[in-house]
């Protein structure tokens, strides 16, 4: 059996249901793979783990992957199970934000550590400075949760459709009290949750073969999860070693995740990719990447896996 280690971008949750399902349902085993899934977290930089040899393949967002590639970390996207972005900016109505024009002078919570690129890109499109200068927005590095919104320390915070948004709701704030801006709707969506490997390893046929099997089984897992969201959520729950996740939250998350994976067969869609690259290149004064990346993705694996 071939061993494969997968490094996730975040902690065990339904966001990664496809992989857990594939393992739980024996899809990996059918392919002859022995897969280890390593959860991530705020202090884990998946690229570092990949380059350090701690994992064979990782889940990451395209903007941070491209930024890493420009830093000299030769990683390539081999599959893209997520079709759409789940990022949004969630604002309290009472803070007076009704449209992007109202951001000026407000405090906005943003995730950093590689997740800030879509936001910075959006702001530069809106012409709002993020460095604290006059006429721009005040940016906060937001912690792990939505407290800044609840404590009214920020007018808006970053949320995912499938996770943090529901924490706001669970805290007792009704959807009517909120205004949300989906990155998809604002035309600044970027590709999330793709699978990446090190470029040089891919030239090894044995490794390529392993990835083909892995992607095939993973996509099988994703489709299974889309069809059986509640069972998928339970599988995730069983794999959560912290014991902190709740059934209700995971089932709801799985429902939202299914909407994002729908429409992807696993292969990266070139126009989506181009849209992300253009957005990142057009980042105004402080572009995330300085030149169009070459060879940052390949269909080499998905071509073999999906046909």
């Amino acid at each position, binding site marked *: 059996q071939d061993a494969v280690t997968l490094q996730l971008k975040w902690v065990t949750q339904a966001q990664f249901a496809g992989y857990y399902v594939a393992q739980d349902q024996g899809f990996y085993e059918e392919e002859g793979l022995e897969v280890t899934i390593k959860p991530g977290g705020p202090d884990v930089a998946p690229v570092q783990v990949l380059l350090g040899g701690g994992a064979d393949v990782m889940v990451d967002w395209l903007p941070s992957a491209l930024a890493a590639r420009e830093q000299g970390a030769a990683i390539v996207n081999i599959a893209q199970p997520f079709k759409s972005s789940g990022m949004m900016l969630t604002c309290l109505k*009472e803070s007076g934000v009704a449209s992007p024009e109202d951001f000026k002078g407000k405090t906005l919570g943003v995730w950093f550590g590689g997740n800030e690129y879509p936001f910075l890109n959006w702001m530069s499109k809106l012409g709002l400075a993020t460095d604290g200068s006059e006429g721009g927005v005040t940016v906060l590095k937001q912690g792990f949760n939505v407290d800044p919104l609840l404590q009214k320390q920020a007018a808006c915070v970053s949320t995912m459709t499938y996770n943090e948004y529901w924490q706001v709701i669970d805290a007792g704030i009704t959807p009517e009290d909120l205004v949300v801006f989906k990155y998809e709707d604002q035309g600044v969506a970027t590709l999330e949750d793709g699978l990446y490997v090190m470029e040089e390893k891919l030239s090894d046929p044995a490794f390529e073969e392993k990835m083909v099997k892995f992607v095939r089984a993973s996509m099988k897992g994703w489709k299974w999860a889309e069809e059986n969201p509640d069972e998928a959520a339970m599988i995730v729950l069983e794999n959560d070693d912290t014991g902190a996740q709740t059934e209700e939250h995971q089932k709801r998350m799985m429902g939202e995740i299914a909407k994002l994976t729908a429409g992807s067969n696993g292969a990266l869609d070139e126009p989506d990719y181009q849209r992300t690259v253009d957005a990142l290149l057009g980042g105004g004064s402080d572009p995330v990447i300085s030149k169009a990346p070459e060879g940052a993705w390949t269909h080499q694996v998905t071509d073999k896996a999906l046909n």
Partner: protein
Amino acid sequence: MKSVLPILTVVAVIVALWYAAAVWMNAQWVYDQAARADTEVTLAEVIPQTLAQERPVLPAPHQVAAELWKSVVGQKVTSKRSLIYHGWITLSATLLGFAIGTGLGILLAVGIIHNRAMDLSVMPWAIASQTIPILAIAPMIIVVMNSVGLSGLLPKAVISAYLSFFPVVVGMVKGLRSPDAMQLDLLRTYNASRGETFWKLRLPASMPYLFASLKVGVAASLVGAIVGELPTGAVAGLGARLLSGSYYGQTVQIWAALFAAAIAAAALVGIIGAIQRVTLRRMGMAR
């Protein structure tokens, strides 16, 4: 035992203040919610609500106690929801790290007192090493050790050792140097070797210092183990409980994990204190 009453008094005062603070800090949310729902609340309605929120700014003591109870007694110890399970994971890394840190600390101290070059060069850098933010390099330690195939307990223990070796070095250098000139001269008149001087004089004389620094070191070890748990993907352990609690805004869970950690630290320090008493009595140094 004389201390029981004072401690209880102080604890009672703290609990009372805590309740008052909980009401005060959580009230804003109750008022905000009322405003959003367009209703008025009276003070009498506010107080009970502040003490029973799901994600309070400051959970009330009984909420923390209930959570502790639930996650310590209310679960099988093998359950992932049991704090005993998580506590044990952290504790095993703590103990391994503490053992490594103490061993390293003692070795360094022995080197420092016997070798002038080490004495001059190690101490300033040992101090500098403690001014490095451990949380920043912990992930790198994990990644680097991972890349040479070490994972699981050991990387956490290394971080824990990094924090605990320092107090041991400082204490042991003091302790091994504590014999006065007269006690050293006595052995010189016997023409004792360095080794004999170490085993018969320096080491026994350093025992009180060793135990004092072990107490500081074991608490630091625990912090190190918790810090080391964050960049491993926070899979399990008290650090993972802190982090996931924080990630989901579960303040009660954070506080319960915090208390579990403090209780573990207090227990470890207590155990070392007990060993100290027995050892020093055996050695005839306790009066």
